[in-house]
């Protein structure tokens, strides 16, 4: 084989070998997975909308779910590897062709996701790897990397200081939070025992992890990442000790951190992320391992992990710190784009073809926009609306499609509303409206909602209500629209109606309607209405147990229990 087989990396570098670990616990996973599904669909049958059920059906029965998760040593690492085909970021500002509408999207998206995660028998695409992993080491790291590259085989012994030495800090097993709250407030019998079963019955590997994520057992997923990371030698107590990094371990950390962030375990996350620093230690680069990753360049760190860690301080009330880190990332990306522009590889070392260059430029321009969005988010958190406006205005000037233009005008409109600049908001709305004309002749939900928000800024709640109602005519099941109508009703002095609108919204689409923020709104209204809110809140809790898994970060706060 002249091309390196990806699976070999892991086979030769894992300590202890992954295969060994998985073989120990593996027993026919597909059966168990199926049995768990039955339980789930039973619970979901009554209220889940047809669309949602369809999407679940696809994901559950699709061939990808019966991945050979535990069957052999090679299959495990391969699934965890980033798929070598072209990068395709579906969430960014540049959505793929034919992206989904508000409610009906999940089916298509999950299929997309499955494609990316399945094992493909494609040849390894060296260019795609290089493109995706590209990163420019700083001067310090470069010195060590040159040493690593130039030392004869087996004679390179790096200093401790250049090593990244992570370890798990959050040791305790996380319980299903919704389950815990349900047991406390509803009693063991009504709470059922959903999550626990689920977590124990998926395979203890990446496929199982994805399964937990997909079905929303997020705390169980964090537990599983701990198991897998521990098996890879970076578990509890391993912090500040030399360890072996692979793309797989970093993917596991990414998954762990991403989920921890979602369920707001930010303090533990900060501690565990600390040893990684800014991912600029030389052992975060492929060049550090010339024996294993011959001729491969760039960073082992997935870009999304780099971004997530950079944003981290903004989640603990230090957006200015996050902003500094994001600007450092932006600077590296700008350097890479400059190199690409000179027909060089991202790191400026090699020469690349025109096609390769275009692909890379597309990828990194997309990532650059994503970083800029994060910077804007930090600016919004800092209430630095000037900076946020400047960046968004520049992005708007650079955007190429009418959709993007329009989406950015609409975002600028709301940004101005946050700042209180109602006149400017209206100007942006008009611009958005002009662009929308090219896309569709009549106002849509977004436009009506933006109009309604401007009315609210003017204190005209009746007008706002009318605009939201027009949006509701177009998308009767839109949860956000229903929520905004309810908020208007309260300011118009119609508390009872506000409550009933929100309750109906939840009934019509529990999956989306049982949104953390909508629950906060509804419970706020309950508390205003009456001194006895207990039963109503417990009813919501029962609904949550029925329709949601363990995805709400803080059930007690959302329902204003206690």
């Amino acid at each position, binding site marked *: 084989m002249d091309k390196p087989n990806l699976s070999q990396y892991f086979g030769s570098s894992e300590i202890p070998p992954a295969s060994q670990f998985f073989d120990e616990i593996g027993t026919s996973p597909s059966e168990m997975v199926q049995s768990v599904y039955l339980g789930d669909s039973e619970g979901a049958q009554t209220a889940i909308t047809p669309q949602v059920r369809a999407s679940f059906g696809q994901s559950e029965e699709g061939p990808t779910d019966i991945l050979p998760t535990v069957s052999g040593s090679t299959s495990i690492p391969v699934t965890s590897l980033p798929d070598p085909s072209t990068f395709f970021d579906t969430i960014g500002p540049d959505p793929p062709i034919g992206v989904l509408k508000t409610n009906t999207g999940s089916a298509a998206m999950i299929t997309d996701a499955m494609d990316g995660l399945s094992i493909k028998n494609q040849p390894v695409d060296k260019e795609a790897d290089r493109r995706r992993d590209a990163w420019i080491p700083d001067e310090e790291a470069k010195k060590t990397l040159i040493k690593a590259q130039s030392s004869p085989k087996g004679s390179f012994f790096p200093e401790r200081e250049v090593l990244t030495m992570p370890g798990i800090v959050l040791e305790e097993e996380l319980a299903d939070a919704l389950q815990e709250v349900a047991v406390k407030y509803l009693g063991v019998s009504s709470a059922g025992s959903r999550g626990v079963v689920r977590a124990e019955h998926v395979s203890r590997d990446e496929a199982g992890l994805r399964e937990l994520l997909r079905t929303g057992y997020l705390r169980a997923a964090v537990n599983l990442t701990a198991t897998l990371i521990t098996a890879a030698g970076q578990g509890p107590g391993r912090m500040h000790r030399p360890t072996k990094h692979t793309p797989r371990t970093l993917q596991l950390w990414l998954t762990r951190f991403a989920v921890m962030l979602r369920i707001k375990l930010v303090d533990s996350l900060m501690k565990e992320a600390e040893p990684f620093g800014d991912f600029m230690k030389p052992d975060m680069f492929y060049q550090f391992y010339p024996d294993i990753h011959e001729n491969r360049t760039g960073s082992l760190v997935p870009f999304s992990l780099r971004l997530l860690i950079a944003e981290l301080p903004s989640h603990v009330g230090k957006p200015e710190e996050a902003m500094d880190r994001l600007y450092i990332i932006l600077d590296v990306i700008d350097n890479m784009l400059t190199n690409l522009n000179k027909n060089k590889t991202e790191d400026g070392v090699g020469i690349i073809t025109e096609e390769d260059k275009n692909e890379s430029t597309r990828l990194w321009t997309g990532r650059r926009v994503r970083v800029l969005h994060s910077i804007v988010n930090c600016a919004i958190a800092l209430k630095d609306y000037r900076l946020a406006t400047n960046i968004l205005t520049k992005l708007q000037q650079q955007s190429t499609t009418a959709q993007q233009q329009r989406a950015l005008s609409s975002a600028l409109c709301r940004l101005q509303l946050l700042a209180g600049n109602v006149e400017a908001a209206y100007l942006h709305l008009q611009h958005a409206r002009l662009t929308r004309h090219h896309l569709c002749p009549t106002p849509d939900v977004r436009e009506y909602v933006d109009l309604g928000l401007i009315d609210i800024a003017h204190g005209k709640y009746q007008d706002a209500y009318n605009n939201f109602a027009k949006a509701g005519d177009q998308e009767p099941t839109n949860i956000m629209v229903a929520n905004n109508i309810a908020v208007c009703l309260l300011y118009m002095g119609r*508390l009872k109606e506000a409550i009933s609108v929100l309750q109906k919204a939840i009934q019509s689409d529990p999956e989306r309607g049982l949104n953390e923020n909508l629950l906060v709104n509804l419970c706020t209204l309950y508390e205003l209405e009456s001194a006895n809110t207990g039963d109503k809140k417990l009813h919501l809790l029962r609904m949550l147990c029925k329709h949601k898994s363990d995805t709400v970060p803080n059930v007690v706060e959302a329902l204003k229990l206690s």
Partner: protein
Amino acid sequence: MENKEGMDHLVALKVMRLTKPALISPKIVTCDFKDLPGNILNNYLKDDATSVVGMETLAAGQFLLLPQSFGNIYLGETFSCYVCVHNETNQPVQSVSIKADLQTSSQRIPLSTQQHQSSVMLDVDETLGDVIHHEVKDLGTHILVCEVTYMSNYNTLASFRKFFKFEVMKPLDVKTKFYNAESDEVFLEAQVQNITSGSIILEQVSLESSQQFIVKSLNETSDGKSVFGDVTLLQTQESCQYLYCLSPKPNIASDIKLIAAAKNIGKLDIVWRSNLGEKGRLQTSQLQRMTPEYGDIRVTYENLPSKVPVEKPFNIKCKIVNASERTLDLILKLRSHQDSSLIWCGISNRKLGPLEPGGKTYIDLTAVPVNTGLHSITGISLMDLFIKRTYDYDDLGSVYIF
């Protein structure tokens, strides 16, 4: 605005302050398509009711979140709250009414609830509620007093009161400076500082001039655009400086006594907005300037060129006003100092004739500049023949000679 209610009443009273709602966004956690979680987390984000389709990674959402705390309230803002009475029993309650007053340090203001002036019957689980608005015009402690009256089970009127206390703070600090120009115009510099805890937009800052003056705002360029750019956004503690030019109205400009007495300049009217358009409005008290001291004689230049070529004679029109209480008999003296850069042409020791109190006269002067640079116009003196006093005017203006 929680308040403990110990007694058992048939109805419960709840009050919620209605500041503007917030626009909320989901927790933005994304992965690349090829990462281990694939699109699963991205899909969470997309499916979240609070995210905006196509702009999921931007925290500028459309989803309104109700206020979750009382927040701050500033002078000039409108205090709004929802007052709600709920029947807590399983039978109708008769004759329910709400009365709300706002007690400040100086007065007690009755707040009208628009809909429910008279008492009503509350059926089981029904509520009686209303939104109350009040523009806050006092600083310091305010107490919202809500009184609920209803017919008890013993057919007597029962009532209870709840108190909600809040502090009204100062939102802006306004510092002013005045400059009295030779031309009788008054320039006003107004520094408006944001002393709220968040950022604000100054939506409108205007000077309403007093009867004596005509105001011209100097905060826009000739094409009407604000000199501050698109946005007059002030972060907390930031200030913005406005400049106004006030000219005395013609009837006042012509009378030196009236000008000297024109102290009242006008009032600054400031409208600002913060989070989601929350609006506030303040007007300063009458701004007063220090009027200039003119003494007995007031000399000013009119049509003074700003720059003239060297060695080329130029003309100055000089206005002399009698600001004293008696008729003046004046002699004009022109002296060219040795080191002066201007040499006067014309007659010195010229008699100007009698000048009535309040009267004025114009004289035309010609000078030849001999050195380049910026030079003061010096060497003009007036001598009062009656009291034999000489007034020197050496620093009334300057001219650039090139």
